[in-house]
């Protein structure tokens, strides 16, 4: 009883502290998202990584966090609610994590090992009442190797895995922890929890109006004083129409918009808006079918296609808002390696390879690509795909498109090249943008034989025993440097075998009012909004 009252009082104080500043001259950061609705607030959000960016990582923390402090270096992982982690030297299937002392949930309760155990039960154990099937499914791919989580002491936990997995720290960065105390307060009603969520993140929940806005206020008691927000209130609004977002920024209704259209950027700049962009772990490529008898089965055709794409021309078409892709990651990345096959635009070399393969402009080969009209991370899919289509026609590859909406393309991707409807439609490639944030997701999932669709992301059923062997070693290599070098070796082999047609990396453009200052766009899908200030 006393405990409950104390927690309520602490929560009240936290909220009161937040509002005490807002009462005078509240500084508000208003953001227009590309999402069609406010992301859900019960933990892992929907609306893709945008949901994590504006709601998930602001209300909640993970045990291990992304380092979002730098715009220059690839974004790695740093301590979050766990201060340290190590694999048990005697048992590679067991990780020991020390938890951060002195952290409190937004509801005022202290953060303990019991809470972490409860959270993993909530995602792993369908027999407990707090299990949530949709939340579990949304992170299942990240926690598939976790068998269970045990409390060692009040501030230490052990994570037991089914197999040795050196990549667990990266996976934990996606797992957001919610307050079991708030869940109990609302008597296990997740809908009620979503209307008054409680995490440990740098923002406290203030208000949610479905399809209109979510308002968060700064958590003055946040455990990391450096990340206490420098503005009082964050308002995130769903605005799926790109023109509407630009108009909202230009008319002063919002301070920040996600993904402005390339052709609106000159107008935004003319009005004094800042365009911020940076490389981030994303690829926009053509993934290919490796089914027998398929034109892409010939490495010469794959290499020729890679050499035919005029990436610089495409970049110009997009107003500079892309990075020319020569692999799943950029050449300066630790996982890039030293491929012998240099991806560049060289039409002569492409024509020569096509001739060797028995094709050419006079004897074209036909392929069919599944593409979408729009979609999360798809950039400008129609003009970009048509651009590549023109490039490939010049060397004797005639591309036909199977155009579908985003939802249908996701299904085509998930079911893989062997799905009856895909085979019946004669589709032998797919343009599907991907996240390459952590090493397995960046490299091995596209190439390993046992990641063939529908189980994994190897859409076209590529198989290369050498890559399989390197990837198998990489996932059990616990030394970070050796692990990075193994992933680089796998990636090098992928490029040398021209596993896909690499075209672009997105640069995640966003436009903001000149009043917005202090934002550092990290090389990550997620961003730290806490240092942002908004001038009156």
């Amino acid at each position, binding site marked *: 009883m006393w405990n409950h009252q104390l927690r309520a009082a602490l929560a009240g104080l936290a909220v009161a502290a937040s509002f005490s500043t807002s009462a005078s001259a509240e500084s508000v950061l208003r953001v227009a998202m590309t999402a069609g609705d406010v992301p859900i607030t019960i933990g892992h959000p929907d609306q893709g990584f945008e949901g994590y960016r504006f709601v998930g990582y602001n209300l909640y923390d993970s045990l291990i966090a992304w380092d979002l402090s730098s715009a220059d270096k690839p974004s790695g992982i740093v301590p979050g609610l766990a201060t340290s982690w190590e694999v048990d030297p005697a048992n590679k299937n067991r990780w020991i994590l020390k938890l951060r002392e002195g952290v409190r949930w937004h509801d005022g309760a202290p953060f303990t090992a019991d809470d972490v155990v409860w959270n993993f039960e909530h995602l792993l154990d369908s027999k407990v009442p707090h299990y949530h099937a949709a939340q579990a499914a949304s992170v299942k791919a990240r926690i598939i190797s976790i068998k269970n989580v045990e409390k060692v002491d009040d501030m230490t936990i052990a994570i037991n895995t089914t197999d040795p997995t050196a990549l667990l720290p990266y996976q934990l960065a996606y797992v957001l922890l919610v307050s079991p105390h708030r869940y109990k307060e609302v008597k296990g009603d997740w809908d009620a929890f979503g209307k008054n969520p409680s995490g440990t993140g740098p923002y406290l929940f203030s208000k949610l109006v479905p399809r209109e806005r979510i308002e968060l206020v700064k958590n003055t008691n946040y455990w990391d004083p450096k990340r206490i927000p420098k503005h009082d209130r964050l308002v995130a609004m769903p605005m799926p129409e790109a023109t*509407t977002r630009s108009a909202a920024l230009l008319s002063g209704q919002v301070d920040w918009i996600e993904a402005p259209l390339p052709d609106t950027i000159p107008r935004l700049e003319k009005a004094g808006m800042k365009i911020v962009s940076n490389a981030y772990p994303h690829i926009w490529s053509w993934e290919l079918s490796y089914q027998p008898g398929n034109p892409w089965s010939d490495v010469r055709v794959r290499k020729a296609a890679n050499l035919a794409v005029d990436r610089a021309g495409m970049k110009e078409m997009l107003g500079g808002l892309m990075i020319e892709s020569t692999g799943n990651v950029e050449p300066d990345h630790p996982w890039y390696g030293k491929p012998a096959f240099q991806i560049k635009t060289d039409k002569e070399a492409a024509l020569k390879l096509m001739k060797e393969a028995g094709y050419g402009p006079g004897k074209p080969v036909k392929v069919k690509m599944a593409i979408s009209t729009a979609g999360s991370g798809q950039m400008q899919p129609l003009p970009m795909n048509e651009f590549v289509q023109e490039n490939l026609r010049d060397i004797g590859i005639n591309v036909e498109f199977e155009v579908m909406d*985003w939802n249908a393309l996701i299904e085509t991707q998930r079911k893989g090249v062997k799905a009856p409807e895909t085979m019946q439609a004669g589709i032998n490639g797919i343009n599907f943008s991907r996240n390459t944030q952590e090493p397995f997701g960046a490299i091995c*999932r596209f190439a390993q034989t046992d990641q063939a669709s529908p189980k994994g992301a190897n859409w076209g059923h590529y198989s290369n025993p050498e890559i399989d062997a390197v990837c198998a070693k990489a996932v059990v290599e616990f030394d970070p440097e050796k692990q990075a070098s193994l992933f680089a070796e796998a990636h090098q082999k992928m490029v040398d075998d021209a596993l896909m047609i690499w075209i672009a990396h997105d640069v995640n453009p966003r436009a903001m009012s000149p009043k917005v200052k202090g934002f550092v766009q990290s090389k990550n899908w997620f961003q730290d909004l806490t240092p942002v200030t908004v001038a009156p």
Partner: protein
Amino acid sequence: MLYYILRRILYAVPIALGVSIVCFSLVYLAPGDPLQTLLPDDTPPEAVAELKAKYGFDRPVPMQYLFWLGNVLTGDFGTSIGTGRPVIEEIGRALSNTLLLGACAVAVAFTLAIIIGGVGGYLHGKVSDKVVTSIAIFGVSVPNYWLGIILVIVFAVELNLLPAVGMGKSGSQGFGLDLESLKYLILPTITLALVPLGIIARTVRASVAEVLGHEFVQTLRAKGLSERGVLRHVVKNAAAPVLAVMGLQFGHLIGGSIVVETVFSWPGTGFLLNNAILRRDVPILQGTILVLALMFVLTNLLVDLLQTTLDPRIRRA
């Protein structure tokens, strides 16, 4: 009359049932899956299967439909796959916002259409008539998404007189009948009103011009009835076809517009439907379309009743 009303209400049942069956079938005929956009691209198939079972998507489609229908008959519209919130709550909130916008558009479109259409019909063949006809053609021809964007650029971006998007600084929760809130209604109302304005104005013009050409009007004038008295008879005779068109347009307006609501980020049923279509949020799609269809049927019934009151010949027919 009571028998007529009861009969019309009974007609609404098969219509609603038909609409729900067509809608359900279309959702499943379209490629894509309700759970695709919810889950990351590398979600294991067993996790997808578990979630499908939880939402009942693993059952045969006819069973899913019957299960849904059974729940709806008991007042349970289910929960949204995307947000986890009750569908009825989502529809209620969106519908109130759409009704507000629709009512304003009805007021603007109907009033202006009757005035300019009436003037055009009364002054048939004169310059005023040509002006009215031009306005009507403009209203019918201009795509409303284009008009919406142009209005935003002119009045919100360039002149900074009106807000570009949304329902106010605090959204629909803070919407009130104050000047600040009403400013948010102006641009979407004009955009939404333009098409029905054109359609109704043309109908009013044609109907008034036609009635004015009838012999009884000449008789009324020959008998020395004042022009105001003549007009009263003309309006009464011209009202029936106009009411029918107005009824249809009323149904369209209160049904919400996906395009207008998306352009202005107006959180109504159009915005809700657009999001539900993209995400294949079947419970939201089904519930919203059913409610809108019933409202459309109800509106048509009210218009029919009004028509029979004005012109008893319709009931006898």
